[in-house]
């Protein structure tokens, strides 16, 4: 395979089977799975695990995440939730057991009468989809979680919505990638920014993708390139002509708090509240901290928003009055990569003539589901690398918002 790269050829250039652009949890998961499948991999990111993954609460919650009009996403989220225990177990067997995985349930809570109605309506939709959501009396809910406010309107038990700690998972995967990297290969994780895709024919961006240009001038030559750098994907040079990656930043503010000893445990289940129409969640961690989130802002402001912090703490206290006693140790804001239909951009890219651009897989736009969808994104991507395409996932093709590419009919 020939690959045209900028002159002069650099002695520092790298060569690998699969180059993964982006070291968020999606890119890391894909790199891990590709490595397990026997490929040599190079993960490219100036600072892996510091984007949306750094903020994410890590809820594995296909049931409580079900939104009206988004039923199409459910097969993907359910499939991925089912893959998580195996994903965790494999990491543990490799010697990386610290992932913060907890198979505790989720409680969906409503504050007032209108929230109670909204949750009941949503439960009907969830039940229609065959999902398991059991109503509890407030007394039953408080028997499980004694620090819950007595002043709640509704409680539902969602037994199969679990959680991981995304920071721990990202660190575990990165360590596993590096340790299992090919003997003598020091470029399993390359801390640089990818600036452009390189193609076999440098004048045709729909020709085979054969590498990645880095901001330090080096080139990573690869048989396959996976674009998994979230919001950054749309700004890459050399994307196939006509491909429109419709990504917009949807910022979330999220808080981390330490629970003092006398209040341990603050809660054992993940609590997802609807408080006077606004969502808030409290996720307990193994280390005695809790995560409270998350706002959803499209104001383009990257910093932590004071009003959001106030609102999250106010609403969390409606669920758990003891939140007022906690130590606020971190406020974080990150952008989720949002797409027009809230579903990911995942798969190969159509060329105009009905074929697909060889050597390229797109995996971005995971919006608020990045952590949950990591194992399925890794599985689908490694299948594509092996030449296997499951038509069930065609509706998530990355070219579906690109009129010029005449995406194939979705069955």
């Amino acid at each position: 395979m020939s690959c045209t790269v900028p002159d002069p050829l650099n002695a520092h250039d790298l060569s690998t089977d699969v180059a993964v652009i982006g070291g968020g949890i999606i890119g890391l998961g894909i790199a891990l799975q590709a490595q397990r499948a026997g490929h040599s991999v190079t993960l490219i990111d100036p600072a892996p695990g510091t984007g949306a993954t750094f903020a994410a609460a890590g809820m594995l919650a296909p049931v409580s995440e079900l939104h009206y009009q988004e039923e199409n996403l459910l097969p993907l989220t359910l499939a991925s939730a089912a893959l998580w225990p195996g994903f965790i177990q494999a990491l543990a067997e490799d010697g990386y057991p610290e992932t913060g995985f907890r198979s505790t349930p989720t409680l969906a809570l409503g504050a007032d009468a209108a929230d109670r109605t909204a949750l009941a309506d949503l439960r009907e939709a969830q039940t229609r989809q065959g999902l398991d959501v059991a109503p509890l009396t407030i007394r039953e809910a408080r028997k499980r979680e004694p620090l819950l406010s007595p002043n709640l309107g509704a409680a539902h038990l969602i037994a199969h919505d679990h959680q991981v700690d995304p920071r721990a998972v990202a660190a575990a995967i990165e360590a596993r990638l590096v340790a299992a990297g090919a003997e003598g290969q020091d470029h399993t994780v390359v801390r640089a920014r990818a600036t452009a895709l390189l193609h076999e024919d440098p004048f045709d961006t729909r020709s085979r993708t054969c590498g990645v240009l880095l901001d330090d001038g080096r080139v990573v030559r690869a048989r396959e390139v996976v674009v998994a750098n979230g919001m950054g994907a749309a700004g890459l040079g050399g994307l196939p002509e006509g491909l429109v990656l419709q990504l917009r930043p949807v910022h979330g503010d999220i808080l981390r708090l330490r629970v003092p000893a006398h209040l341990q445990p603050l809660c054992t289940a993940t609590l997802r509240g609807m408080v006077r129409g606004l969502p808030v969640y409290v996720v307990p961690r193994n280390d005695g901290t809790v995560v409270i989130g998350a706002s959803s802002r499209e104001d383009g402001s990257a910093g932590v928003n004071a009003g959001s912090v106030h609102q999250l703490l106010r609403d969390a206290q409606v669920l758990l009055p003891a939140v007022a006693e906690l130590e606020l140790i971190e406020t974080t804001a990150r952008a989720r990569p949002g797409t027009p239909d809230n579903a990911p951009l995942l798969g190969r890219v159509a060329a105009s003539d009905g074929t697909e651009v060889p050597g390229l897989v797109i995996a971005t736009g995971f919006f608020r589901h990045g952590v949950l969808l990591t194992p399925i994104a890794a599985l689908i991507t490694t299948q594509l690398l092996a030449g296997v395409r499951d038509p069930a996932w065609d509706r998530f093709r990355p070219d579906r918002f690109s009129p010029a590419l005449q995406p194939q009919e979705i069955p």
Partner: protein
Amino acid sequence: MTQTLTQTDPLVIDGIPLGSRLIMGTGGAPSLDGLGAALVASGTELTTVAMRRYSAPAAGSTGGTNLFDLLIENNIRVLPNTAGCFTAREALMTAELGREALETDWVKLEVIADEHTLLPDAVELVEATEALVARGFKVFAYTNDDPVLALRLEQLGAAAVMPLGAPIGTGLGILNPHNIELIVSRASVPVILDAGIGTASDAALAMELGCDAVLLASAVTRAQDPVAMAQAFRHAVIGGRLAAQAGRIPRRTHALASSAMEGRPDL
């Protein structure tokens, strides 16, 4: 029929004719695609956007990736609003932001008293209206359903007054129809019923009371099926407008047969 109606009976504000008397908001939409589909289904030609909640379109922005691109794509005029402002000063700054980013003098002025009721603060509202009119804005003033205040805003130069049916997001409908009727009867600028709409009949009632248009957001964006609900509102607004012009029958205590009994053949 609906086509003919909107063509022959446009809503004219500031000299601009609008084919639909349904003005939409964007807050609460679950996805950009879903919002686009609902806006198209509503038939709206004017949609209000909170300048404090959405980053303005970047100069020379290329991709159809944000809310503003979506509106442009669907030929929908943008009405920037000052939602989230608690003082006249904040409202002024937000209005200037909207004018600069969207190149329009139109602004929906919202000055909220507190976040529990989201009711307008009448004193700040009056002050902000006066200041914005002086700066050349066309002010759509979101106000309480107070006939005195509504008239005052008009006197200060508001291009349209927008009394609320009920507090924002409550879906309680029109709590004081008599006041809305009174506002309409004394206004010489368009009256747009804004906020509190829950379902289609609320919008039809607003039009029957004589309002020139209806503005709503949550009732569509937070509905389980936003597209179907948007269609419902499209028809309700047209229905209410036609009914208001058609001359309803008086309310009677006693029944009155629709056909007279005299002269009927004895079959």
